[in-house]
């Protein structure tokens, strides 16, 4: 989107950014719906058997939380870099962000495998169902985010973004922070409560 187009919008916010915000509002409702379903049954169903914390692998999940938060920070740094027009530094930080996401996914895969072996499966009981549904949907979002990041990286290296025009980096960043935020909510309600 050209600068001219941004100046033209009534709100002064570019279409892409406003669109991203609107999209995220609907995402909040999607996760909000699922999380409230979980909270309602967690507090209301007599048959929600919560596995002991030791079985949940809290340290690993904490590490994962850390990885994801770090990747959010590197995303901020990447945005700052492109705002200064430093494509090299931008690419490096985006690379770190992608790395953080990948670590998250790998650890998650290991966790899934481990839990499944331990008998916590999608249909074993209500907790398992919620665990895999909530984190699974989140994993899908992380994966989507990684694809987005790859695209941003390639486009950035091809010189598509300038200090004046980098809307898509900002949108991708917003999305990535959102995905991070969802995890920060899922982590305590699934692992710690």
């Amino acid at each position, binding site marked *: 989107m050209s600068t001219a187009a941004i100046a033209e919008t009534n*709100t002064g916010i570019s*279409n892409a950014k406003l669109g991203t915000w609107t999209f995220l509002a609907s995402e909040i409702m*999607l*996760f909000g*719906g699922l999380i409230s379903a979980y909270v309602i049954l967690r507090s*209301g169903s007599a048959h929600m058997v919560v596995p002991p914390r030791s079985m949940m692998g809290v340290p690993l999940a904490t590490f994962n939380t850390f990885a994801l938060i770090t990747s959010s920070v590197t995303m901020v740094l990447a945005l700052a870099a492109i705002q200064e027009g430093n494509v090299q530094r931008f690419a490096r930080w985006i690379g770190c962000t992608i790395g953080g996401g990948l670590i998250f996914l790998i650890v998650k895969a290991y966790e899934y495998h481990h839990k499944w072996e331990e008998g916590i499966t999608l*249909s*074993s009981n209500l907790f398992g169902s919620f665990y895999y549904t909530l984190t699974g949907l989140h994993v899908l979002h992380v994966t989507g985010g990684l694809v987005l990041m790859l695209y941003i990286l390639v486009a950035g290296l091809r010189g598509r973004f300038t200090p004046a025009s980098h809307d898509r980096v900002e949108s991708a960043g917003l999305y990535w922070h959102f995905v991070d935020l969802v995890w920060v909510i899922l982590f305590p309600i699934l692992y710690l409560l």
Partner: protein
Amino acid sequence: MKDAHGHAGAHGHVEPQSFIWKYVFSVDHKVIGIQYLVTSFLFLLVGFSMMLLMRWQLAIPTPADDFDPEKLGMIRSLLNWMWPEKMPYGFMDPEFYNQLGAMHGTIMIFLGVVPLGVAAFGNYVLPLQIGAPDMAFPRLNMMSYWTYFVGGIVLMASFWAPGGAPQSGWTSYAPLSVVAPAGQTYWLIGMVIIITSSLFGAINFIVTTLNMRAKGMTLGRMPVFCWAQLVTAVLLLLAFPVLEAGALLQLLDRVAHTSFYIPKDMIYGATVFPRAGGGSPILWQHLFWFLAHPEVYVLLLPAFGIVAEIIATNTRKPLFGYKELVGSLIVIGILSFVVWAHHMFLSGMRTSLANLFVTTTMTISIPSVAVLTCLLLSLRGGSIRFNTPMLFALAFLPMFGIGGLTGLPLGFAPTDMHLHDTYYVIGHFHYVVAPGSLVALMGGLYYWYPKMFGRKMNETLGKVHFWLTIIPMNFVFFPLLIQGMWGMQRRLAVPTDQWHNLPVQGWSMMIGIAAAVLFVGQIPFVFNFFWSLRNGEKAAENPWNSTTLEWACPSPPPHGNFTREPEVFRGPYEYSVPGHKSDYWPQDEAA
């Protein structure tokens, strides 16, 4: 998705090249609007045809004592020939009845009226009214139509699924829907696709309205229709994802054997249902109605908007209380998120919650009364032209009045104890959706047809269609209220299986006949639609002498819409301004 976001703005105006890109995968909001228009009318026709079969069954649910299978009448022979298993001798199998019922509701709401009111008219008219060259994200817009199309195909395909179409009602209450045959899976997948389409649309509408208005078009100068679309888009954006969540859980219950909605120790058939259990059937209802109540206002708000436009134009005076109208629309939007459990008074949820929801339900009726009051008072002091669109818009007022008023006994929990899940509910909401919304949308088509196709629809045929719609509709829907008051439950394939329904069964014959007349009454409409494409009276830019911006561009508007950059100088409804040369003062006319 992100991709479409990004690209879209930049490539807003690729010149259409081949037929395919011009008419099929067009990114022009006007072409997309018409695609939606035609598709949703087709679905309305499908939904209505299903209902015609059902009304046939309800008129004569069982063979009479002297019934002779050798001497079938013409209709029975035809039905017997078409569906020998589903309608033997023209009497409907309950399974088929349940399938048609669930599909009628789903099609009418999700594939018919919402796409018509929001996507067809919204797409076509909204950018024109705010003076935008196109939607904010034209490609996303195109994707929205095609996802809707695919979703519709998936839903219709369910008829050929093993075990047939979904048969648990459009509400798909668990656990019935979880144990239902494969059609229900199609329903869930179809819904997720349609929800995605709606979300694309909602994002587009919100960004377009907030960002793409012409110079001088402040929010306070937007026509009521634009406000209605904006509020609707917000409802879709925030309510639909919750159903998506609910549908996802139901899908997992069906295919991955989870038990979100399956209680412990449920018995199905003769044995314990093999699930871990512990879920809650009522959870589904909360998730469903959290969407579905806002959804009913999604059916209504575009109709409000259309009626407001038509009334302003044809009374030749400003709408009464523009601010109050817009304010009420916004309040309706907000409140519609806090009334959902009025569908669940008797569901087994905590009984103390009912009082809360009775109160919110009564509160939400106030802004609806305010809207109706404003529209009604707008007539006062006018110079009313009774053209076809105006007839439809006027009929909307009392019809919505009946629908809305019958919502009140349902909204009081004590009276709902008697009326819940009876035909009274069916009567209530059909008055709001059929002679209400649907009729307003038909009016909208007569009103904007000249803009869309450059010719007016025939007035005489239009008036014939009007009377043949509004009169039979009342003969269809009013007796439903009577039957419901007597206690006849909804969703009964053979109401006469229950003797308490016999005293009101007679009405069903009258309803059946009226429904058939209603069907025949649509023929002038369909004929008029196609005939006028070539033979209608030619329409200039502004055939109704309106003030709003959609009439400031050619009919039909070219790609990119406006031949000159529109600029707005005043509010939307400056009719009969004292001292002005004509009785309308378009928004874009320099002083």
